[in-house]
């Protein structure tokens, strides 16, 4: 049985057979030697498309598509859902809105697909303008912003895997040092001007 496999280097299709789990193949396009580890899922035919049925007479219709027959209620909000709208999440069927809400609440880590890194943001706010020299004047604004982010998200930052707070600590220390530096510079300028007049 011929199977669909692409070259990892050039993405062109490579002719392969289902014989053997590990194969050494040669890409006809880029001549690369490709090591392919095949799994049983390769031989499984894709499931047939679900048939959506029109609701007749007293049959319950889908909340989102009133014409289609409801097949299951949403486990989150209880709305009736057709084949098209019911999404299987673990052992439950949910509607798209409930999945979206679960993602926002981050109550199910399996549904979350991104997280903002406020520790990196704070670090970049401090280090970015400082090392650029030309934009170092902006640290007057970015250092307090980094300080606020670091303290506010110290215990609020959410990531799927535990993340150390070293970056927050570095951002706090750098911000304080920068602000102290600016305070000294401003004080020096003011006192020198007073001396002139």
């Amino acid at each position, binding site marked *: 049985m011929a199977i669909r496999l692409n*070259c990892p280097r050039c993405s062109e299709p490579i002719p392969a057979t289902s014989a053997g789990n590990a194969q050494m193949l040669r890409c006809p396009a880029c001549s690369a030697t490709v090591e*392919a580890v095949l*799994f049983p*899922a390769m031989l499984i035919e894709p499931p047939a498309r679900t048939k959506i049925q029109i609701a007749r007479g007293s049959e319950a219709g889908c909340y989102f598509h009133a014409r289609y027959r409801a097949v299951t209620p949403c486990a989150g909000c209880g709305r009736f859902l057709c084949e098209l709208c019911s999404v299987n999440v*673990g052992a439950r069927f949910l509607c798209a809105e409930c999945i979206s809400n679960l993602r926002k609440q981050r109550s199910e880590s*399996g549904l979350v*697909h991104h997280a*903002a890194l406020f520790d*990196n943001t704070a670090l970049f706010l401090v280090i970015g303008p400082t090392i650029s020299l030309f934009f170092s004047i902006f640290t007057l604004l970015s250092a307090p912003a980094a300080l606020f982010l670091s303290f506010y998200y110290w215990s609020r930052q959410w990531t799927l*895997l535990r993340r150390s707070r070293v970056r927050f600590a570095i951002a706090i220390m750098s911000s304080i040092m920068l602000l102290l530096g600016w305070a000294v510079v401003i004080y020096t300028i003011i006192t020198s001007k007073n001396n002139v007049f």
Partner: protein
Amino acid sequence: MYSELGAMAYTKISNGGVLMSILPGLRTKLYLGTDHLLLIEQFILVERYKRFYFRDIQAITRANSARWVVFSAIWGVCALVSALILLFHHPVAVAIGSIFALLFGFAFVQTVVQGPTCVVRLQTAAQSYRIAPLERVRIFRKGMEAIEPLIRNAQETSFANPGPTL
């Protein structure tokens, strides 16, 4: 199929190499969950999670790449040029040259020690995705030793008892 676990224990397979660890915010890491592989792509301020469920993985393909030779040459030449600055015998030149020679030298040694690179792609019925954390031959072999039996076991179980799918 989504997993319904609240907090899942993950085992680290690869964290994208030492050089990438130095640069904050540009890393890809690969973790092993109970029923899926978790690919974490970090791009400065955002972390993206991609899950590849064992039962969906059709194939993992690998082809050797010349990236490590190219990078070894770049770091080597840079280290050599930095070392040449030391010939000026000026204290500032010596200081700058030493710092850069050490940095590039470390990068060169690290690239050589890590060994040959490759391009790795994971294929499912819906997509073919590049798995950057496994793109060293040594790490690929080690990672596959952990991943392959789990995928085979999951697929044998799930295809014997097909359950509801997404």
